[in-house]
């Protein structure tokens, strides 16, 4: 079958009544959860994950639901950012945007997203299968090199704190080694706790690291008197003006996220157009980078961001292995996901013009004193749904406290989640490769694939700091020149 036939088959699965319903409800639910202030798309997916487990849906429906939940959470998060022009802690009459104009920015942000989704689907349909074919020939040493490349990206693109990102990634990897080691039967770092034999559950780490640690940070932010960030009200006029930018920005947004390097703060933002005139283009770019993040997951089984790492873990909970084998063993799954990414913005287009908008606005105004315990309680339910063990809750609280302290020191959390999700397979590849070679380290530098992957990893590690260094030097020279 060629790409078009596969895509057609994927669409046939998506338009089945159950899947269409899942896509519609998932998008709406994702947008609603994403609209809650202080919730990232990663947290949104983690919170909605037990829902997908509880409903006992067929795998293709689960995949579609997870994908649209993620895209919905993304959009919801951006909505809450763009619709919240009020400074924290000030009561009084809401600005005009709340009184009737709220529909405008939402509908504006949906149209470019829809256009972008078209481009993204095309990009994924063209890129993912050849990448998957390439990755099928990987030996354990190549796979280890690929995982290292992901970390090199996470560390190199971590902005001003590459060392702290490296520390976070290492901590995440270390956390993944907790539990019974299957090949030797040794219990590692369990402290003789039977609860820990299976390792730390993914949901415990995600909820602890992202939700629980967020509560004290919310408390600190609330006490700071933030200045109002004047949100621009977009209009159709802007959409027309920014037409050309809409076409340019998405391509860049997509490219940033296709690479297995994680999309961390700064990397994508630096490439996005700025200024209110470019708002629709920015929307398009973000949708594309959100959808583009699926390429490495689908084709290589390697997540590019914390949210995608959670997605890989979520698929594993549903017994679906992301990666090259998905295209050969379950092509219908892979292609229905691609089709779902295409369909996802449709329900949003619909709800942009519905009175449902009032619900978005209402959620936005949830008081912090209710939102914070709500986050903890939902997180606890999510964690408790795994093993029904209070020990997991304790672990969640301890991990949350630890990551709060780390975040206070400027340690980014995305590499930690990446490390935790990739740790197990990475160690397996390392041990497999070394046992094949009889312990010789040279095995990691044999195949052309691993050689090129290592070279790219080295470039990702060294180039961003060098570029920043050069950039600051030229800026320094430029400011010094007029004197």
């Amino acid at each position, binding site marked *: 079958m060629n790409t078009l036939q596969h895509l057609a088959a994927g669409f046939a699965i998506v338009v089945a009544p159950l899947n269409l319903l899942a896509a519609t409800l998932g998008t709406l639910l994702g947008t609603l959860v994403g609209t809650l202030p202080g919730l990232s798309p990663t947290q949104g997916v983690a919170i909605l994950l037990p829902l997908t487990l509880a409903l006992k849906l067929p795998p293709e429906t689960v995949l579609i639901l997870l994908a649209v939940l993620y895209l919905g959470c993304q959009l919801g998060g951006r909505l809450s950012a763009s619709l919240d022009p009020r400074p924290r802690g000030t009561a009084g009459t809401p600005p005009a945007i709340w009184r009737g104009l709220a529909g405008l920015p939402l509908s504006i942000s949906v149209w470019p997203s829809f256009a972008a989704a078209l481009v993204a689907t095309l990009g994924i349909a063209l890129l993912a299968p050849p990448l998957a074919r390439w990755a099928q020939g990987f030996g354990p040493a190549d796979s280890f090199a690929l995982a290292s490349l992901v970390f090199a990206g996470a560390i190199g693109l971590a902005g001003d704190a590459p*060392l702290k990102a490296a520390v976070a990634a*290492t901590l995440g990897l270390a956390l993944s080694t907790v539990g019974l080691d299957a090949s030797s039967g040794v219990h590692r770092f369990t402290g003789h706790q039977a609860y820990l034999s299976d390792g730390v559950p993914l949901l415990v780490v995600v909820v602890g690291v992202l939700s629980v640690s967020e509560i004290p940070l919310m408390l600190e932010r609330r006490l700071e008197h933030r200045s109002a960030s004047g949100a621009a009200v977009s209009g159709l006029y802007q959409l027309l003006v920014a037409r050309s930018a809409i076409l340019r920005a998405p391509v860049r947004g997509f490219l940033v996220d296709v690479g297995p390097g994680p999309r961390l703060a700064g990397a994508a933002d630096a490439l996005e157009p700025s200024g209110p005139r470019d708002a629709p283009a920015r929307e398009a770019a973000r949708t594309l980078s959100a959808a583009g993040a699926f390429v490495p997951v689908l084709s290589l089984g390697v997540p590019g961001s914390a949210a995608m790492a959670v997605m890989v873990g979520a698929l594993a909970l549903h017994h679906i292995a992301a990666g090259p084998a998905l295209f050969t063993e379950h092509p219908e799954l892979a292609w229905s996901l691609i089709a779902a990414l295409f369909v996802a913005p449709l329900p949003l287009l619909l709800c942009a013009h519905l009175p449902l908008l009032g619900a978005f606005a209402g959620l936005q105004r949830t008081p912090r*004193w*209710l939102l914070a315990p709500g986050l903890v309680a939902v997180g606890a*339910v999510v964690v408790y749904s795994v093993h*029904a063990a209070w020990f997991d809750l304790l672990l969640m*609280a301890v991990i949350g*406290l630890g990551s709060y302290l780390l975040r206070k020191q400027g*340690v980014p959390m995305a590499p930690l989640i990446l490390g935790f999700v990739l740790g197990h397979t990475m160690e397996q590849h390392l041990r497999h490769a070394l046992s094949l070679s009889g312990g010789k380290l040279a095995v990691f530098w044999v195949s052309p694939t691993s050689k090129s992957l290592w070279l790219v990893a080295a470039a990702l590690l060294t180039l961003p700091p060098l570029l920043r260094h050069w950039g600051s030097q030229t800026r320094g020279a430029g400011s010094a020149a007029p004197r």
Partner: protein
Amino acid sequence: MNDQILGASCIATGAYLAWTAVDYSILAAVEPVGPGTFPALLGGLLVGGGLWLVLRPCPLPPPGAQAPPWPPVAATMSAVLAYALLFEWLGFVLATALMALAVGLAFSGPWKRVLAGGAVLAGLLYLLFDRLLGVRLPPGLLSLVLTGPGG
């Protein structure tokens, strides 16, 4: 100064990892790479990163950085810890209502509304997850009320 504390914690954690991991490799003499190799490698990396953090020149704190409001932060985190410990004994509804009260007050919400909001939140979440979605939550002290004498 903060980076030095972070670095020192990294060195301690890394040393613990490497120290414990060596034992694992002795326990299971699987060649050439045993269960201890990967953790030992990570421990080494953490010690290295920690040393770098400790020894590099300390960056100045960003302007406007201030100490976090420790009393409410400590109250919130203790409430979450207590919530985890009392979750099964008190049951989901009671534990959640109490936790919501403590956290809500730390967020300086008006106490009457915090109390009511927490109770409603606990009840609604219990109905949604336990009754509708089939995630079993502990009834705890309220088991007689929530599940009836038989359950």
